[in-house]
């Protein structure tokens, strides 16, 4: 019977710090923990006293990967709080911007962080030697997604074009047409990426655990941006009630808060969106899901990576359509004209790694008096722990190394963003 002693401090290829601890002796599991030791950030305190039109700029710095999602959800919450209306054009351009981040993030996660596991390489750097054309294709699509963000957000990360009520700068018709042509040219490379992942998809562990999946849901849409909060348990709530969905609480093993809604834990992210909205994926998205046998109701967390691939195809296809829709009405060089009223507002968007909530309140000077944010990864921590508790006994006899790798892959499958703020260099001079 196995003795296992796994203690992974600061696991790699996830964003931030997470520890994995497993102890077992004579085949009996004594301890299984997913620990998050990150120091808490205090962004909610940082926004207090700031003017309403500074909020989206400040919170975009919460994360270098989902900075567009943080900016978009912040601006939606600010507009909700201050009763600011936006035009249909603004709404569509913001959605297009949001798609650019989904594409960026999903390609990056599957291509740079998950693919090395499937190819049994320690990182994407040695993967260049093993599968050079695949890596180049991944980088090519990632580069296009970045260009898309740059056009709409003003730069690749930390948007500068978003202002309450609209945009400070909108793209021209010519720029949108060029973007559309570039996106059309990404369909084939995306199919190549899917083929590459399919060739090693057998290395994705066959593990299932029934759980609750939470995402946005909107009538007949595979939504990333609009709609209500829905659970696969059949519950639906308006976004204004997000605090009673997340139900954040603290546990000893984690500095990050945990969350629960109908069940003990829930999962957010691409698989949650898929399980709530699969029938509304674009044709290409459905084709990708079909390639991997992904079906609605899937409860294998490793398939979150496959749902991300299907979504990457979906956002490319839907962006091409959306550009046609925007241009069919003629792009206007609009500038916001707002008459804000003080109040409190709530918003949600789907960040690439799951549903993201913000809320703010402003006084009569339009200065922020209160803020609340709940990031997707925090909503997933408890679910990761429950997955561990099932995965470890099932795989205890596979050997310590295999078990460790399986657990690391499991955490990575959630695409977690544990510490969304620092990255400093730490160097030692060698000559």
């Amino acid at each position, binding site marked *: 019977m196995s003795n296992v002693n796994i203690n992974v401090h600061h696991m790699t*290829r996830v*964003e931030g710090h997470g520890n994995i601890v497993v102890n077992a002796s004579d085949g009996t599991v004594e301890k299984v923990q997913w620990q998050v030791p990150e120091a808490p950030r205090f962004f909610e305190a940082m926004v207090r006293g700031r003017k309403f039109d500074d909020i989206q700029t400040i919170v975009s710095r919460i994360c*270098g990967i989902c*900075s567009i999602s943080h900016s978009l959800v912040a601006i939606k919450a600010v507009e909700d709080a201050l009763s600011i209306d936006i035009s249909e054009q603004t709404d569509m351009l913001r959605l297009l911007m949001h798609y650019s981040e989904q594409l960026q993030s999903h390609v990056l996660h599957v291509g740079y962080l998950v693919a090395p596991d499937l190819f049994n390489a320690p990182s994407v750097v040695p993967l*260049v030697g093993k599968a050079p054309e695949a890596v180049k294709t991944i980088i090519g699509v990632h580069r296009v997604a970045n260009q898309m963000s740059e056009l709409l957000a003003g730069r690749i990360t930390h948007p500068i074009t978003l202002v309450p009520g609209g945009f400070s700068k909108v793209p021209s018709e010519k720029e949108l047409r060029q973007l559309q042509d570039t996106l059309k040219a990404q369909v084939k490379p995306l199919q190549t990426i899917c083929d590459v992942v399919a060739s090693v998809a057998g290395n994705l562990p066959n593990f299932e655990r029934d759980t609750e999946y939470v995402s946005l849901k909107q009538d007949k849409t595979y939504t990333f941006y609009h709609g209500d909060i829905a659970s696969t348990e059949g519950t639906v709530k308006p976004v204004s009630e997000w605090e009673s969905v997340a139900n954040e609480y603290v546990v000893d093993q984690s500095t990050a808060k945990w969350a629960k809604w109908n069940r003990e834990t829930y999962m957010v992210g691409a698989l949650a969106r898929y399980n709530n909205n699969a029938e509304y994926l674009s044709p290409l998205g459905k084709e990708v899901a079909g390639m991997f046998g992904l079906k609605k109701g899937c409860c294998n967390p490793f398939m979150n990576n496959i749902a991300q691939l299907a979504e990457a195809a979906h956002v490319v296809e839907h962006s091409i359509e959306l550009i046609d829709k925007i241009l069919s009405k003629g792009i206007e060089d609009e500038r916001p004209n707002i008459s804000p009223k003080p109040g409190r507002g709530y918003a949600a968007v789907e960040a690439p790694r799951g549903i993201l909530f913000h809320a703010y309140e402003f006084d009569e000077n339009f200065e922020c008096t209160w803020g609340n944010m709940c990031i997707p990864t925090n909503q997933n921590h408890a679910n990761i722990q429950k997955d561990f508790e099932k995965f470890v006994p099932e795989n205890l006899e596979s050997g310590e190394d295999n078990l460790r790798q399986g657990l690391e892959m499991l955490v990575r499958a959630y695409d977690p963003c544990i510490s969304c703020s*620092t*990255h*400093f260099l730490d160097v*030692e001079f060698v000559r």
Partner: protein
Amino acid sequence: MGKDTIVIGLGNPLMCDEGIGITLIEYLTKKQDEHPDVDFIDAGTGGMQLLHYISGRKKAVLIDCAFMGTEPGTIKRFTADEVKSIKKLSHLSLHEVDILKVIELSEQLGEAPDEVVFFGIEPAAVEDGMELSDTLAGKIDDYLQTIDAELGTD
């Protein structure tokens, strides 16, 4: 197409001195006229994006907060082969991305700049907050002069 030289500021202005790279880029952008052949980019903490920013350039200059074991406020110029990263995470996470690994990937792909220069600035405070420490704030002009000299304008 981008210009031959790119200067990239890295960091997070919500973490005090961790944002020094971003602060310097803001100053440098205001002096863009003095450097018409240089792109100045605030890359925040979006690590892997660096790969795209530096692709095909002749020269890349990266400015970042760095723990170098020197006095707080010290600015040091170095190249990738002069240092090794001692960060615990070096297998390409994203926020924790090891910049040196990105340069290595860029080289493997055959699109790395001919010259990559780092300016590391030793922080006095990396904690929640939107202001630089007095130590670093008092040295902004020195830092700008050092970078100007690197770019050929003194």
